[in-house]
């Protein structure tokens, strides 16, 4: 074997992928059984989640040990970068689908139900009492849905949440600068600040949801407004939770001395992801809450 061959990193066979498949299979099968009101559904789901989380610890643990062991060369690093980049791109497209649904409802389907665009007879024959607006003041067939009193205004708590999330984008950058200058204490503190802001955001969103459900009557079942509101902000909230959990992991790693000023892709991957949830939130703030 020539010396140049040592440039390639080829991992050993691994049992983590098949473990993950068993976990996810149980999650999906359990959830599907639960939706079909099969008694063991939640248990199967819980088992699957446990296996999946075990896999995440095991697989990422392996990669972290390899990385800290200095096995990864520049080429592996670049492969990871492309991997994370395209993963985030796939997430962007997932949100694009839901934003597409939001714009379709706002620009096309709701006005059409009110008779716009030559759909007068649709309006006349289906729900003549419906008059379109956004947020909808009435639902076309209100007796089938949870009618809400009002929606959450943009310039209250959501604006505060915007400031919180944008600041966390700033603090994670400060943490990155500290890491590059090898200022470990500053790195750990700024990371801690970032994940605190992240979880604070999730907590505030959860209390807003409770407010919407209990006092405003705004639910998933509140017609297309409630649907798009909760699905978009809900999937975003899920991603913030995942991101904040990832931040917690790299914070713990930073505390135990991981990452070097010139070799810290694990950190950067989380930072990229964090900026991604930040940008999605800006889209949500403008198009779901504000305009």
């Amino acid at each position, binding site marked *: 074997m020539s010396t140049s061959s040592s440039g390639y990193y*080829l991992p050993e*066979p691994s049992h983590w992928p*098949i473990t993950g498949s068993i976990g996810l299979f149980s999650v999906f099968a359990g959830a599907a059984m639960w939706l079909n009101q099969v008694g063991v559904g939640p248990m199967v789901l819980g088992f699957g989640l446990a296996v999946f989380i075990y896999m995440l610890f095991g697989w990422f643990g392996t990669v972290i040990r390899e990385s800290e062991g200095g096995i990864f060369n520049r080429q592996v690093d670049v*492969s990871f970068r*492309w*991997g994370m980049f395209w993963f985030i791109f*796939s997430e962007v497209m997932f949100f694009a689908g839901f934003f597409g649904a939001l714009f379709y409802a706002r620009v096309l389907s709701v006005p059409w139900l009110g008779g716009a665009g030559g759909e007068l007879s649709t309006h006349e024959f289906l729900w003549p009492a419906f008059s379109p607006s956004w947020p909808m003041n009435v*639902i076309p067939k209100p007796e089938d849905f949870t009618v809400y009193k009002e929606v959450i205004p943009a310039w209250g708590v959501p604006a505060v949440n915007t400031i919180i999330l944008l600041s966390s984008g700033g603090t994670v950058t400060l943490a990155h600068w500290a890491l590059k200058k090898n200022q470990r204490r500053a790195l750990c503190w700024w990371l801690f600040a970032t994940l605190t802001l992240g979880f604070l955001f999730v907590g505030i969103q959860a209390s807003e949801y409770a407010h919407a459900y209990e006092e405003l009557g705004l639910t998933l079942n509140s017609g297309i407004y409630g*649907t798009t509101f909760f699905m978009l902000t809900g999937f975003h909230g899920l991603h913030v939770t995942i991101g904040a959990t990832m931040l917690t992991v790299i914070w713990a790693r930073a505390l135990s001395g991981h990452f070097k000023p010139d070799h810290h892709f694990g950190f950067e991957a989380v930072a990229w992801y964090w900026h991604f949830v930040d940008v999605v939130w800006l889209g949500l703030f403008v198009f779901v809450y504000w305009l």
Partner: protein
Amino acid sequence: MSDAVMHGHEHHDHHPTGWKRWLFTTNHKDIGTLYLTLALVMFFVGGAMAMVIRLELMHPGLQYVDPQFFNSMATLHALVMIFGVVMPGTVGFANWLIPMMIGAPDMALPRLNNWSFWILPFAFSLLLLTLFLPGGGPAGGWTLYPPLMLQTGAAMPFVIFAIHFMGASSIMGSINIIATIFNMRAPGMTFMRLPLFVWTWLITSFLLIATIPVLAGAVTMLLTDKYFGTSFFNAAGGGDPVLFQHVFWFFGHPEVYILILPSFGIVSQILPTFSRKPLFGYESMVYATASIAFLSFFVWAHHKFTVGMPLAGELFFMYATMSIAVPTGVKVFNWIATMWRGSLTFETPMLFAIAFVVLFTIGGFSGLMLGITPADFQYHDTYFVVAHFHYVLVTGAVFGMLGGVYYWLPKWTGHMYDETLGKWHFWLSAISVNVLFFPQHFLGLAGMPRRIPDYALQFAEWNFISSIGGFVFGLSQLLFLYIIVKCIRAGAKASDQVWDGAHGLEWTLPSPPPYHSFVSPPMVTDATAHS
């Protein structure tokens, strides 16, 4: 650092054997073999469903299965053939070939590669298990349109989650392929020296990463509409069932190119070899492939011209659809020009490749007919559509893959396949597939709707002929299975070069190639790059 890596290397040559080898493998060839095996198994599963469909349609009237079961056969046949045969099959080719073609030892992310594959058997278990649930399998068609799809029984969440699961596999596989092509090329293997198969997969991967998440979103909306009270597709709440069709086909049209582009790549490898001439217009092939992929994002509504869209939308999607014929025409002309004045020989891979060019073009032309909005009002949801997409998918995508199997099987196994049997397989398939699908054009133009188990008497003759073609085509594929098994077990020793006119790095490796394709990167020059 190099110590640890070298150690990893040496250790690698003692990889596990038996079932553990396949379950835990991080090797691109093992994983490629797994993908291809899964695709072959699912080819017979989906094929058996097609046989049920053709059996019921052989005569008018209801005779063998009840309509609900017929509908779930039609639905599952499509899902299995698309997600279980063509997609994993072409990923299998990508796994086997891309590292060998670009001069790499393996894929960029080998453990992720294992996971991409080992999701699929679980995902298809979820999907096929629905046949045994109360209410039976999904029966609303593979396009899953609401409100019909929302009437699915216990199968509903299993189908949705199976699609999420398969999508995860596709996204991870695509990420891996892009990372490999961007980052693992040997010195001198510039982008414009990549074999065309590598190019088509690079572009396919991009399409997959851009559209599979949108499909995931669409089916998630179905799930929440059914179980959690949302109104995405419920007009009573301000939503619209047509919204689903938009979101679905935003995925669905690029998906069509996801299925066909890798076969374009395979055919572009085979034709130069057996014409003993370089591929005509390599650069224009690359640009044409990229243009097709780009345009595929702006044509989705041509799948539903009759749903009631504004006139401006109908016209936009018609013209956008027509424009795809330009890059596709470039490709067809380049393939023909590659053969022009070549020293042609007609081994089995070449036969499949030539049949691909002719028959795919027929499917392309019927696609143009369907893309003309006013004409589509007549053809929509008839057997003409069925004939069209089976020409592009069976005689297109599947024939490309069959040709590819014959072309690279000697490299993969180290044995030559039985050429006589291969030719029998080709001629049986090529004739029967036309008997099967060509009459469906006539049926469609005469007004026979798709997705029904029974039909008016005037459609009886062509349906009978189509069914006979279907049974012969199905049986011919058993011969294919026999040829593969025979080639794996024994056969004349294949040389490294295999085909005297073949160019590219994979032919510089032994047949079968070593466990890690290139442990030291080869130096690529114009002379050693693609022909």
